[in-house]
């Protein structure tokens, strides 16, 4: 299988001085997506930098989740989906026929809106991806599981019951477990589809803290309905409306001085 060779993550020190996110890791070029005859994404072009948090915002049905799912080809699972244009990660077109989707998804992880832990133990949830990709050694697994749970800020809460069912965790813990599961296989990019929309404010705050922490090691793209959340955690924000990218800029700029009237109406809550 040809390797799509995403660029390896460079240590933070080497990036000092450069404006964050100026090297594009993900490039979306003239992307259009159709569900059957209806066009859900219209000529989207944007570039996302490495190790920054980019938020996709916009009203329901604007295509932000659809675009997110283009980045790890989860839309492949839906019948009747057709795309035009290109998505490049590290310079390689991920829709070209020689790309191994399995390898792509290993490197572009995903966290879903509704926390979806497997009905297995906490340990087995995190170990699942590692086992898939051939890790068999017990101590390697144990180390990796602990590291992932620590990075997902869940270790202290679950270390005494690693072999209990994951379904016994609270909603917020389950979502952090899903994040631990995603980072266990060391992806370079993590896609998050409204990861905190089903959580209470305290659990949401913990997930947001975690995202800011994860930013040091991972490139994060997050879809959110919560404007304050986008403002709090993201470096860049893209505003979508009915399948079109209306504006894409630094988060501060989008929320304080947007170039487009439509964006301003939406972020200030005046949108009708």
């Amino acid at each position, binding site marked *: 299988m040809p390797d799509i060779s995403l660029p390896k993550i460079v240590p933070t020190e080497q990036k000092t001085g450069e404006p964050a996110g100026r090297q594009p890791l993900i490039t979306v070029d003239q992307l259009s997506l159709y569900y059957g005859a209806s066009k859900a994404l219209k000529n989207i072009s944007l570039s996302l930098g490495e190790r920054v948090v980019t938020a996709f915002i916009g009203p329901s049905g604007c295509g932000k989740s659809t675009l997110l799912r283009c980045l790890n080809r989860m839309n492949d699972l839906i019948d009747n989906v057709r795309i035009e244009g290109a998505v490049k990660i590290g310079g390689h077109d991920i829709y070209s026929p020689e790309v191994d989707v399995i390898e792509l998804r290993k490197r572009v992880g995903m966290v*879903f809106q509704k926390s979806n832990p497997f*009905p297995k133990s906490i340990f087995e949830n995190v170990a699942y991806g590692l086992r898939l990709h051939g890790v068999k050694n017990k101590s390697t697994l144990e180390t990796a599981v602990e590291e992932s749970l620590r990075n997902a800020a869940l270790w202290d809460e679950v270390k005494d019951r690693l072999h*209990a069912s994951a379904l016994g965790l609270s909603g917020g813990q389950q979502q952090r477990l899903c994040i631990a599961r995603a980072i266990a296989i060391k992806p370079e990019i993590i896609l998050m589809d409204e990861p905190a929309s089903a959580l209470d404010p305290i659990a949401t705050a913990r997930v947001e803290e975690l995202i800011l922490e994860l930013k040091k090691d991972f490139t994060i793209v997050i879809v959110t309905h919560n404007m304050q959340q986008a403002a709090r955690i993201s470096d860049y924000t893209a505003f979508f409306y009915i399948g079109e990218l209306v504006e894409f800029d630094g988060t501060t700029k989008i929320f304080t001085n947007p170039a487009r009237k439509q964006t301003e109406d939406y972020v200030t809550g005046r949108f009708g």
Partner: protein
Amino acid sequence: MSAPATIDFRSKVFRYGSFFFTGLTGAATYLILAILAVILVNVVLHGWPGLSWRFVSTIPKKDIFDPATTGILPMIVGTSIRVILMTNFVVPVGVITAVYLTEYAPNTSWLTQIIRAAVNNLAGVPSVVFGLFGLGFFINFVGKNLDWVLHNGQKAWGQPSLIWASLTLAVMTLPVVIVATEEALKAVPPGLREASLALGATKLETILKIVLPQALPGILTGGILAVSRAAGEVAPILFTGVAYYMSSLPTHLTDQFMDLGYHVFVLSTQSPNIDRTQPILYATVLVLLILTFALNIVAILIRSNMRRKMRSLH
């Protein structure tokens, strides 16, 4: 008459209507319970006296109608073996078919529609037709050809036997397993599949490691239904393997066998003295009921154990 009287009148109609329908639906429910109770009480009361260790552990030597010497060990063994063999055929084939239909087959294609229609129609075929199918296909076609290939035309496979009766029952219960498995697979939350695929699992890995384990209790339900249906069936095995009388237990897949359900038919229609045979007839029916319930209970215990394991928070 004033206006409030009219309102009173209407509300009474509603009250009587509601009372009537509560009574009607309740009566229908209790009727079913009553019928079941009558059957069970009747069978247990009449069957219990005839039941003894000697009766269930004896292979009848000649007169199967003599209450003093006959036994039903070969019938218990025959029915158990054919049900267990059937389960081993029907569950794998049914589950694999259901996996294809729910996970792989394009839902809108005409081929899938035809397969689904075929499964549903198979469920509606009378069981005696399955018996004739088993005779025509398994014995006269598959069996006879096996004999030509393996035994130079000498009769071994090309006659009624345990394996053909079990396969016939498996074909008959296939729709039950397929439909139950399909429902179980569809009930697995799509989020679990997505989570697995997003971690870089292939479709096959996702099915084997996430979807099937999650659907296992539902699949077992299908197996339980198939066992219940098959254990008491007589028509499909009439032409495909059951024997009126055998002096020994079956030892090979190509042996014929005696069967509890068929033995009930034999005792009630072929006996030279109905009054004399009645106790052993009832006792045989009781054993058939107990065996069916026992098979069900074992499967239900396995299933609840599995569910508890999956959901346990400990």
